[in-house]
């Protein structure tokens, strides 16, 4: 591993990475960030001159899926990202050190690089019972996060769990799990929501940080607008089938084999915002809807609770059990109204004739 302080250009040259590859990488990042190509020289210069900013990757209540996703990133590929673009001093899943040595590394970064290093948080932070549901080296996750994030230059929360608690915070949330934003109010966090996060977007945020020394513009959930600003439905390659009314009605039916719209199978594309259809996954290989499965809205807030059932258009009606759909309930209401008025109408035919109206003076009294 190169020492922190080495210029990126030298580091890349030493690894045999040509200028051409660097241009390609920076172009791809600018494309992801939706920035015009006049920023290319600036981004190139920034990346080449970057003195290997130190990065710390914290994992709390997570499945390491976001780390796995990052390791599949080729923009930059894992070798470049881990060894050259940034100096990853601490990452529980891939670091060689263990135990006391690893903890000491983290302490050293917090002390020596104070205010200069980047933190990536993966996984939710438990708050119930004083946060004892996730401890590392005897310290509660919330204490570690507070110390490391409050001394960092910027905090990037990757994945649904670090964003808003994700799966861990889904009902009934026994550990009181919350996302970084909620656990550490007052600390500037950029949320890379998604289950997992898309490494291309996270890499783009890092490049944006290197180029402009600032984080990109964010939406109301502190998610970068370049990645979370648009509805999946509006960018979907199957949108034409939606507008035409060509829908998959059963898994494996003719429409499914022809690649028709998955709306009737509960696809949450019309609800979710993400740049999945554009950036795609695993080196732009594919993404869920291309693979024939509806979107589950994994980059949306509290998606496990709000977007489920994943294969139905609408959530279950609260208080009626999971089998009761809104349609059944509504048709029941309309049916009850029909039966009610029929019964009332039949009974009204048996109503005895009203007695002659009282004289005018008593009418007003009665009414």
């Amino acid at each position, binding site marked *: 591993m190169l020492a922190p302080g080495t210029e990126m250009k030298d580091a890349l040259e030493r690894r045999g990475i040509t200028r051409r590859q660097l241009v390609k990488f920076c172009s791809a990042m600018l494309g992801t960030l939706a920035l015009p190509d006049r920023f290319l020289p600036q981004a190139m210069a920034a990346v080449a001159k970057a003195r290997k900013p130190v990065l710390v990757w914290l994992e709390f209540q997570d499945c390491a899926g976001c780390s796995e996703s990052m390791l599949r990133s080729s923009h930059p590929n894992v070798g470049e990202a881990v060894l050259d673009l940034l100096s990853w001093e601490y990452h529980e899943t891939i670091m060689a050190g263990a135990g006391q040595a690893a903890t000491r590394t983290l302490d050293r970064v917090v002390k020596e690089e104070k205010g200069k290093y980047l933190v990536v948080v993966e996984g939710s932070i438990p708050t119930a019972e004083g946060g004892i549901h996730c401890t590392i080296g005897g310290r509660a996750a919330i204490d570690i996060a507070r110390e490391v994030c409050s001394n960092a230059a910027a905090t990037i929360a990757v994945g649904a769990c670090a964003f808003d608690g994700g799966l861990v915070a889904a009902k009934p949330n026994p550990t009181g799990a919350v996302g970084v934003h909620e656990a550490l109010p007052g600390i500037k966090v950029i949320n890379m929501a998604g289950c997992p996060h898309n490494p291309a977007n996270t890499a783009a945020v890092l490049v944006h940080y290197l180029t402009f020394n600032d984080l990109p513009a964010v939406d109301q959930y502190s998610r970068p607008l370049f990645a979370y600003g648009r509805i999946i439905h509006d960018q979907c390659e199957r949108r034409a089938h939606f*507008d*035409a009314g060509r*829908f998959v009605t059963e898994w494996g039916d003719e429409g499914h084999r022809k690649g028709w719209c998955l709306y009737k199978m509960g696809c949450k594309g019309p609800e979710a915002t993400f740049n999945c259809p554009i950036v795609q996954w695993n080196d732009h290989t594919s993404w869920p809807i291309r693979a024939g499965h509806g979107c589950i809205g994994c980059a949306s807030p509290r998606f496990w609770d709000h977007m489920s059932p994943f294969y139905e258009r609408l959530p279950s009606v609260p208080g009626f059990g999971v089998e009761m759909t809104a349609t059944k309930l509504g048709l029941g209401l309309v049916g009850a109204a029909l039966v009610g008025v029929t019964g009332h109408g039949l009974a009204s035919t048996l109503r005895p004739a009203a007695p002659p*109206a009282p004289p005018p003076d008593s009418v007003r009294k009665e009414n």
Partner: protein
Amino acid sequence: MQPQMKPAAAPVPPERAPRKLAHPRMRIGPAIAVYVWQYPLRLAHWGLVLSIGLLAFTGYYIHNPFIVGQTKTTFLMGTFRFAHEAFAMCFIAFFLIRIYLFFAGDRWVKLSAMAPVSRARWKEMIEVAKFYAFIRPRPLSKVGHNPLAAASYLGIYALIFVEIVTGLVMFNWLAQNPVLTVLVGWIPGYIDIQNIRLIHFCLMFVFIAFGIVHVHMCLIVSSAEKRGLLDSIFTGYKVVPVDELEEDDRAAIEAARDHRVRA
């Protein structure tokens, strides 16, 4: 004593007696046609009826596309969504007309005449309910709405407002209109977009059920009181016995007549 008594009415000549023609349960006496529902109110009513029907049909297709296009040239969902959004704009316009009439309409459609705000109105609501429950023989006849109907309409208008707001939230989810974002863009932060959809969908059934009950009640009351209740939503006029008119009703009718005579 004798001179103070009014002279007895002249006996009706037998050849002119209309008794046989009158309905046995109908009161004989002077009655007038009162112009209760002005044409903007009837326009709003029928506009809402028509647009709710079309919105329910197109909206249900959007929820569950029951026709699947089989040819290459269909534009089914696009057409249904366009129709739904277009009728929704008409629906909002008719609703706004009705809201305007709450303040600018005549005395029987004003908000102050409909809201169950006084103890007397609550008592009258119970009387109306008694008629529907076969306890009271005659319906409680009013020149405008009876208090129970008025309260239920206010409830439906409140639900229509919720339906419009949830619809605009979903419309703006895709349209990203700056004005709508200011008006309703903050709502999905509190109620998730999927629950907004659920509310919007469930209310459709409430409106259909309300429509069924509403028509039934109108039929029942109209046939019991025989004052042209059902006609009035087409013609605007109800037939009201003169002796049942309250003082301010009478004053309003006379003022309207004088106004028309002057004009």
